[in-house]
């Protein structure tokens, strides 16, 4: 790194130009971080789900179709219990509080088994006990409670466009999810309470259970879907990861869209940096020839120019990365709290940013660097500065 000083000083030779280049690429890099994080946030559930062996049993015609209550007996039966346990009924209520824009995940669930099936959610014993006592009780994730300013024992009512009833819930306590703070944006109330409001019609949205091991999952799919295949309500049993992926699939070609923007941003960034490196190299034609006279090889010259491009890119990356990490990971801000309660920059995105900066810097400099290195010494000396 003996030449670092030379490289840095050269880059700073025209502070305005360097500043504008770094500034321009910084803005573009910020867009890249932003767009990719939107994607990773949407896919976050899938990533978390892979850590567990939970499965969901849903209607094969889609989530909008309810399942019969009779299926519960079969799911508790010996055949299924050999491979799965901790059965729970769960209905997505799809409600909001006061204003339709205040929507969040609210679900009606079998409360007794909830703590064990979703064991990453830490529910204190006393909260669980109260939940069993109060039929209209609800447990709320801490982050959600903080967001809306809810307190324990507060009464809230939910409106929904999926169900015609209006649950009046008592917040019996809060839960935290240390390993996955996103799950704290949820509210759970009791399935039997929803059923009572709906006139005892026993509508089941989905069944969830825990496979005894990941090897049991294919068996469970076979047993359960096989059993319902010829009934009037055939099921589709999926892993939690597959369940989450459904929603991504419904969204459309988001992945492609994001990658297109990322590539576009990279291309523009590279062009910008290339322009600057080219200008800089053009100005130093004689100087480079002098270095060659002193004994600098072509390879060295190539290295010096490429390093300058790399330096510009890396600095242009560090600034927005640092800013974004501060904004989103430390201060936990979000560009659209309704759709994205959290907007964490994932390690993968950081790696992408660094890689992109490296690639961009090298690509940007490769042509000017090659031209500089290849130029004949005598031609370089002949140029008048």
């Amino acid at each position, binding site marked *: 790194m003996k*030449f670092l000083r030379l490289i840095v000083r*050269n880059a700073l030779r025209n502070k305005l130009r360097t500043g504008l280049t770094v500034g321009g690429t910084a803005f573009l890099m910020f867009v890249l971080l932003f767009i990719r994080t939107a994607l990773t946030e949407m896919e976050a559930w899938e990533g978390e789900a892979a850590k567990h062996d939970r499965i969901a049993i849903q209607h094969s015609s889609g989530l909008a179709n309810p399942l019969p209550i009779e299926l519960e007996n079969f799911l508790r039966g010996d055949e299924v219990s050999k491979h799965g346990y901790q059965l729970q009924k769960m209905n997505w209520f799809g409600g909001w509080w006061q204003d339709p824009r205040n929507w969040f995940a609210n679900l009606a669930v079998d409360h007794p088994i909830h703590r064990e099936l979703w064991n990453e959610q830490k529910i204190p014993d006393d909260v669980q006990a109260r939940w069993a006592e109060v039929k209209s009780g609800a447990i709320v994730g801490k982050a959600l409670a903080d967001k809306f300013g809810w307190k324990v024992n507060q009464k809230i009512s939910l409106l929904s466009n999926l169900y015609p009833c209006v649950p009046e819930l008592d917040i019996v306590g809060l839960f935290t999810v240390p390993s996955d703070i996103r799950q704290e944006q949820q509210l759970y109330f009791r399935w039997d309470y929803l059923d009572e409001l709906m006139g005892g019609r026993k509508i089941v949205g989905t069944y969830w259970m825990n496979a005894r091991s990941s090897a049991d999952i294919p068996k469970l799919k076979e047993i359960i879907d096989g059993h319902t295949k010829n009934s009037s309500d055939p099921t589709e049993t999926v892993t939690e990861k597959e369940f989450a992926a459904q929603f991504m699939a419904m969204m459309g070609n988001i992945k492609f869209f994001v990658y297109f923007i990322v590539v576009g941003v990279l291309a523009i960034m590279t062009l910008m940096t290339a322009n600057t490196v080219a200008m800089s190299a053009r100005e130093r034609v004689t100087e480079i020839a002098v270095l060659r006279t*002193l004994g600098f090889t072509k390879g060295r010259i190539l290295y010096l120019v490429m390093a300058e491009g790399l330096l510009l890119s890396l600095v242009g990356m560090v600034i927005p990365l640092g800013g974004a990490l501060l904004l989103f990971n430390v201060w936990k801000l979000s560009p659209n709290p309704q759709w994205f309660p959290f907007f964490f920059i994932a390690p993968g995105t950081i790696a992408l940013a660094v890689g992109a900066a490296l690639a961009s810097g090298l690509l940007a400099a490769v042509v000017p660097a090659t031209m500089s290195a290849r130029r004949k010494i005598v031609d370089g*000396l002949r140029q008048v500065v």
Partner: protein
Amino acid sequence: MSDAVVRIQGVAKVYQRDSQAVPVLENIDLEVAPGESVAMMGPSGSGKTTLLNLIAGIDRPTRGSVEVAGRALAGMSERELAKFRARHIGFIFQLYNLIPVLTAFENVELPLLLTSLSKADRRKHVMTALDVVGLTDRVAHYPRQLSGGQEQRVAIARAIVTDPTILLADEPTGDLDKRSEEEVLILLKRLNREFKKAIVMVTHDPKAAAMASRTVHLEKGELVPA
């Protein structure tokens, strides 16, 4: 003489400009003995700088052979030539050509960065070179903070810091005022007489040529008798 510092035999150089062949040097035979200082004179366009470039290994002849410090330059690859230059050649330009973003010290240090010397050793060599040219009080100055004469002296220090076999100077005083010119010429003479450095100097100036032990004349690409 087998111990000649420079031996040029039958050298010709032809430039290709578009489809035109432009002959610049023709039929050059030249030898420079160790410790000798040679002045090369001639009108503009006579090929002086080209000949100097051939000795430095910056350019290759179209015909003939160039030997410096006993090594034939013809067989060397670009990389070998670079190494060769770093070790054996000290080049002094008319326009000094210092790196503007480096201080005087750093400019002189530059050739040493190509070696594996430690930082401390490099410092020693640099200060020695700057001492020879009399600029130890300006080490932290940037070229723009130096006068023309001072810049050229830094350039000379850069040229000698690696203790090269030969110094090549292309109109070293061409851009200097009277006083600086004298200082530089005295310095070059000292390098030649006291430090026994072989020097080949291209110059217009008869005064500069007078400092040399021998003068050769180039006219239209050929060496002519004085």
